[in-house]
């Protein structure tokens, strides 16, 4: 068993009296593909926000490569290697697609020797990533005018540009057609070759089962199952949560 890349233990987050997360343990190993599922409002996005630093958790510890992330703002966490895509795409709308990728390349991804990239270097690397994502033809377009599927790809491309060790994809496929879903799955499967661990949050079961090596299930802020995809799907509690009794 490889060492864990991300180890969250006992993570709790409440908004007033409402517990969005209650003592959730969640682990990701280096290069692993993990599916995170659960009904709407079960706390998936809250967990992502606590891991990436957009929210701070009330209790529990989150270790990344053995270091405690407590108190680190989001921009420091992505510099350590935790990147995310947003459920509702949040492009830098006034910038070109290429410039969108320049931001993480210039601000999040350290080069060797701890120096920052030059503008040219960032532009070249951004173009490489766009080519891998099939977005290179749109490099000079304003990102505000992209189609839904291209916006999702841009979200993933921008996360990739931070040169992460862990990528959290928050419902990158919601509302896409089945061909488009296959495109996104192919992109996410390709992360493994680059040694990037991926957490995929998704409602589309076909995608989750096909993609994941392991699946964790959140229901009402608690983790009720964690294991191989087929085992988890047969778990009566999971069935109950999704289909009712």
């Amino acid at each position, binding site marked *: 068993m490889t060492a864990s890349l991300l180890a969250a233990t006992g993570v709790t987050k409440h908004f007033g009296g409402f517990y969005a997360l209650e003592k959730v343990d969640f682990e990701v190993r280096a290069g692993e593909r993990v599916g995170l599922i659960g009904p709407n409002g079960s706390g998936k996005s809250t967990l992502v926000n606590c891991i*990436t630093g*957009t929210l701070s958790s009330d209790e529990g510890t989150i270790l990344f490569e053995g270091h405690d992330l407590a108190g680190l*703002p*989001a*921009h420091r966490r*992505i*510099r350590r290697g935790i*990147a*995310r895509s*947003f459920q509702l795409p*949040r*492009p*830098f*709308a*006034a*910038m070109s697609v290429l*410039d969108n990728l*320049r*931001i*993480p390349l*210039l*601000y*999040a*991804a350290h080069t060797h020797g701890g120096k*920052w990239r030059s*503008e040219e270097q960032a532009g070249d690397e951004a173009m490489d990533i766009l080519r891998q994502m099939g977005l290179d033809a749109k490099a000079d377009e304003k990102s505000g005018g992209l189609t839904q599927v291209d916006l999702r790809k841009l979200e993933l491309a*921008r996360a990739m540009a*931070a040169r992460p060790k862990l990528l959290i994809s928050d419902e990158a496929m919601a509302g896409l057609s089945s061909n488009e879903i296959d495109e996104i799955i192919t992109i996410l499967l390709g992360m493994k070759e680059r040694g990037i661990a991926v957490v995929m949050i998704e409602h589309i079961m076909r995608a989750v089962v096909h993609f994941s090596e392991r699946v964790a299930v959140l229901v009402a802020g608690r983790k009720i199952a964690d294991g191989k995809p087929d085992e988890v799907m047969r778990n009566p509690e999971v069935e109950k949560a999704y289909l009712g009794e």
Partner: protein
Amino acid sequence: MKARWFTPIVFTVTLLVVALALATVTNNYFYTAAYIVLQFIILATAWNILGGLTGYVNFGSAAFFSLGAYSSVVMFSLFKAPVPLAIPVSAAVAGLVGLGAGYLTLRLRGVFFAIATLAMSEVLYTFVVNWDYVGGARGAYIILQDDPPFGFSNHTQYLFTVMALMTAFAIAVARYVETSRLGRGLAAIRDDEVAAECSGVPTLRLKLISTTVSGALMGMSGSTFPYFMQYVEPTSSFSLSYSVNAIAMPLIGGMHSWAGPLIGAILLGTIQQIVQVTVSSAWNLLIVGVLLVVFVTLAPDGIMGWFDHWRARRRRS
């Protein structure tokens, strides 16, 4: 244009224009009018660093301008500070207040931030009105008794030259901020602050740099005001006209590059000066209002934005 050539070129052009003016124009009114326009160029350029590049609308430009002016008044009262000393100190004071105000208000967004800056301006105004040392509501005089330095024939021409150099400096700073890595980060904040933070941009630090630089430049533009007018009083130095013009000029010129505020300030500042002389000084803000309405409806991205669209259309056809 290569970045490192920009600053020398701006300063060279400025010096040439100033030298030409000093050699040919003797009418002192020209220097007064030009001084006022230059002052607006700095204010608009400074406002645009926070408003245009970072996306935070500051309604308190007059306060930062006055901070500069009153820092000079204090220094002059204390030890007859000369202009070259008053400028950096005034800029530093306004920059520090910018930093502090930014720290307190930057958690607010959009209209709430704008209201907070307006409130800060009112607080500072009340403070100055009740501060006897700087003359309170009566105002304070700065009487320059010595001859102007560097062989200038009078103080108006001397301060006009100083103002022109400060304008060149402000434009160089704005252009540097815009084209540097810092500028990319600020643009990311303007477009989406959460996404910027999650892309590694240290949003709080960058916003504080932005408020500090913007405030310092505004303070710098106000630092020579009491020397120039030889008199300053709070109602005119905190005038809404500064705050409104500092917003209107970049809006009209274009907010996405350093050239926008420059063009907007030259256009609007000159029109106001002409109207003031030929028609009436009461018409000033009315003209700003009418031009704003025209531009917001016809060219929402300002003159520079309109120019960019036009160029893009020509390329395509």
